[in-house]
């Protein structure tokens, strides 16, 4: 809808350069990020909040009652982890935001979760495969963070790793059951794996934020992490008689707020009550 009329409104004739105006060239080609440790914690917290939320969508709709309970359990663990991590992020940021302010009053572009966790829950196979791929990554990441010189983060890692190890056992067993179950389940779950694979590369990418926190002693060797993840995933896929997809082009962007369209809908639901009553206590 831009027109000559718009230009007139701001008093600029077309094509005329004006010296002394505010610069139109932005400071960088990428998105604007905050302090490294805050960004780093948001990534950790948002992954678990969004995945926990997706799992909670199963509550009351699981394939068997026992599994309904198990998925709710994982949702609880992950949202609990997210709350602790976001609280810490808010403290480090020092702008007076607590975990609820961060969860309920940030827009999608301010979220830092990976694309994998925001994908719709899909069928039970999609949920289990995604969970497995994430659990394997998460357990290895917590192992690396156990010795972090940041006391708050190390304490969170120590608690979370126990929960995630249990999740990983559970999701691995289901991948094997579904992969090596019936013909139908094999085809379905291979499809889930093929669809979700392109979101796994993002988990192992290191950027300026990782370099930034390395300065504070939080060092994760992403290449070593990936190698161990490959091994762990291959073992389970082998038992499940599933074929590991070829590494094609990776979808990325979540870590800097460039998400898939799914996140906006998730947040619209999640934040609806809180945002309808700003300032209210619950």
């Amino acid at each position: 809808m831009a027109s000559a009329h718009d230009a007139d409104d701001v008093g600029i004739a077309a094509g005329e350069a004006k010296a002394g105006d505010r610069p139109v060239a932005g400071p960088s080609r990428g998105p604007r990020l905050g302090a490294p440790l805050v960004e780093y914690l948001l990534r950790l917290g948002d992954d678990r909040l969004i995945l926990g939320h997706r799992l909670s969508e199963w509550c009351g709709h699981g394939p068997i009652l026992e599994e309904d309970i198990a998925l709710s359990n994982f949702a609880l663990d992950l949202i609990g982890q997210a709350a602790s991590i976001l609280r810490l992020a808010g403290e480090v940021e020092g702008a007076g935001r607590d975990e609820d302010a961060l969860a309920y009053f940030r827009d999608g572009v301010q979220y830092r979760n990976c694309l994998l966790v925001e994908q719709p829950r899909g069928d039970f196979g999609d949920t289990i495969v995604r969970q497995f791929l994430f659990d394997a990554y998460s357990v290895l990441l917590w192992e690396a963070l156990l010795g972090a010189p940041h006391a708050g983060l190390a304490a969170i890692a120590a608690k979370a790793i126990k929960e995630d190890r249990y999740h990983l056992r559970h999701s691995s067993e289901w991948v094997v059951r579904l992969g090596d179950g019936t013909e139908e389940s094999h085809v379905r779950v291979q499809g889930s794996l093929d669809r979700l694979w392109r979101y796994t590369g993002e988990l192992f990418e290191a950027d300026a934020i990782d370099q930034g926190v390395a300065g504070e002693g939080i060092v994760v060797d992403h290449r070593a992490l990936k190698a161990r993840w490959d091994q762990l995933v291959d073992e389970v896929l082998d038992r499940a008689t599933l074929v590991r997809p070829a590494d094609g082009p990776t979808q990325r962007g979540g870590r800097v707020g460039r998400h898939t369209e799914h996140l906006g809908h998730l947040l619209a639901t999640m934040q609806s009550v809180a945002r309808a009553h700003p300032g209210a206590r619950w």
Partner: protein
Amino acid sequence: MATLRGSRLYSLLHMTTTIRQLPADDPAQVAAFEALIAAGESIEPKDWMPARYRSQLTRMMSQHAHSEVVGMLPEGNWITRAPSLRRKQSLIAKVQDEAGHGLYIYCGTETLGVDRFDLFNQLLDGTAKYSSIFNYPTLSWADMGVIGWLVDGAAIVNQTVLAKTSYGPYARAMVRICKEENFHKRQGYEICTVLANGTPAQRAMLQDAVDRFWWPSLMMFGPSDTNSLNSGELLRWKVKRKTNDELRQRFVNLTIPQAQALGITVPDPDLRFDPETKNWVFGEIDWSEFQQVISGNGPCNRERLEARRKAHDDGQWVREAASAHAAKRARKTEAA
């Protein structure tokens, strides 16, 4: 588990025949059984029991289990919108507890010689009943508070008495479940307290939820004693220990002071305190609404059953895969 689906029709036929053609009980055994009950003994799965006792307990326990499972849906409806992370966690935990209650009571029914999958199929077929309260929609966040307060509260009044029921496994299940229901009630009432002390919009939300859930909560105790078909026999066998109307009155007496503490009203212009009986006397329940809801025409009957059926149907391939895999594993161990 491909047999699950096949067994549906079979189990239905099976259930109807067992109910219609109950074998005549030996009068000497009945007398011994009733003497045990009169002496306050609990009946255990191995004990002899009249066929009628067995079928009544199966009916009550399975309805209870179905109610726990269907009851996950109205509250599950707000998990994704809970307005704080703490509330989100406690709501997930609550709905998960209800799943646990369902599972626990379904397993309890198996001590009576029924298969829980058969019972579950009756729920999906629409032939089994569950608590009418879960056929009402949850329309605002305040419903999460009010359901905990009123619905779990009413369940507690029922279940505290059921914890003394004559059938041992059911009584023990109730003791355990009641502890969690108490926790749910406290949590629900706490949500209500925060809303009552919140913004005008939050207070209005709370009042509206109470207006919608008050009468349906009173209906949870079932038909009035004069119209309750099963009550006489159940009281004699100490399956039930109090009548529906006694329990309803107890609930109202407990709840009105809590409403006063919140500073909200209940939608009953006839409500008054009777200083002589110390009862809160309440107006006439709309039994035609109750009949409509239990006969399948409540606001959400269709949606609740469809949600259960969809979960079941969508999970079919998963259950089949799990049993196929288990069979493969068993064959491997055998071969080894």
